[in-house]
């Protein structure tokens, strides 16, 4: 029998760390597809996957790590630095035992703060092509 999966079980970790205050993640794998039509196909085009592009986002509350959380959590200070550095960051995405691993580059980082509510952050990323692995050893 199929079983429902709760969103909080699906976790994105950067460098093995949670992002503080995360309320939502998205992850998308899109095939780069080309239509092939040769004379041998006799008019019926076929599709060829040339590459897979993966991307996603992290959004949530603006939070700072508290004492003792530095080893397990990233906060906005670390995220800002990571965006500016532009380095590839190893990731895991999914639930324990069923993860996708790879490397990503943070491509877009935004913060929003109003006069009353807790601030919010939004981060977009792209996975470095060729780095994705399903359930790596």
């Amino acid at each position, binding site marked *: 029998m199929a079983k429902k999966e709760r*969103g*909080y079980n699906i*976790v994105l970790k950067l460098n093995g760390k*949670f992002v*503080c*205050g*995360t*309320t939502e*993640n998205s992850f998308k794998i899109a095939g780069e597809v080309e239509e092939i039509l040769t004379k041998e196909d006799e008019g019926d085009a076929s599709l060829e996957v040339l590459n897979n592009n993966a991307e996603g986002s992290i959004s*949530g*509350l603006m*939070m700072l790590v508290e004492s003792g959380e530095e080893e397990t959590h990233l906060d906005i200070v670390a995220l800002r630095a990571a965006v500016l550095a532009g380095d590839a960051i190893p990731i895991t995405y999914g639930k324990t035992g069923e993860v996708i691993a790879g490397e990503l580059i943070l491509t877009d980082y935004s913060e929003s703060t109003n006069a*009353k509510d*807790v601030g919010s952050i939004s981060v977009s990323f792209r996975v470095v092509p060729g780095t994705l692995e399903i359930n790596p050893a």
Partner: protein
Amino acid sequence: MIIEAIQATLSPVLTTYSRVAPQEVETPFCVHDADSVPVRTKNGIVGYVYTVRVLLVCASTADIITYTDSIKSALEAIAGTTVSNTAIEAVYFDDDNIEYNTVYGWHENNITFTIETKNR
């Protein structure tokens, strides 16, 4: 609990009741209640956002103004403190609505606050 924290905060200001006042109550007094929404992250609940309503009842408009200011000051002063084991992170005055109750012949002010806490 937030109800206990509000009760402890407003009791020194004026006669204060949680949710309902007795039938033969004398003015001035206030009645308060609160609704909560948990703040959920993927790491779990990191706090609560309460909508707190305080109904202030006074015999005159002048008293309404005076006690409204006192209630605002008292609640805003607990931001950043722990009251009745509830860690208060922030207190915001949202709005108020002063009316005259023709049935009872008193003045009322419905005051609404948003209070953010770390725990219940």
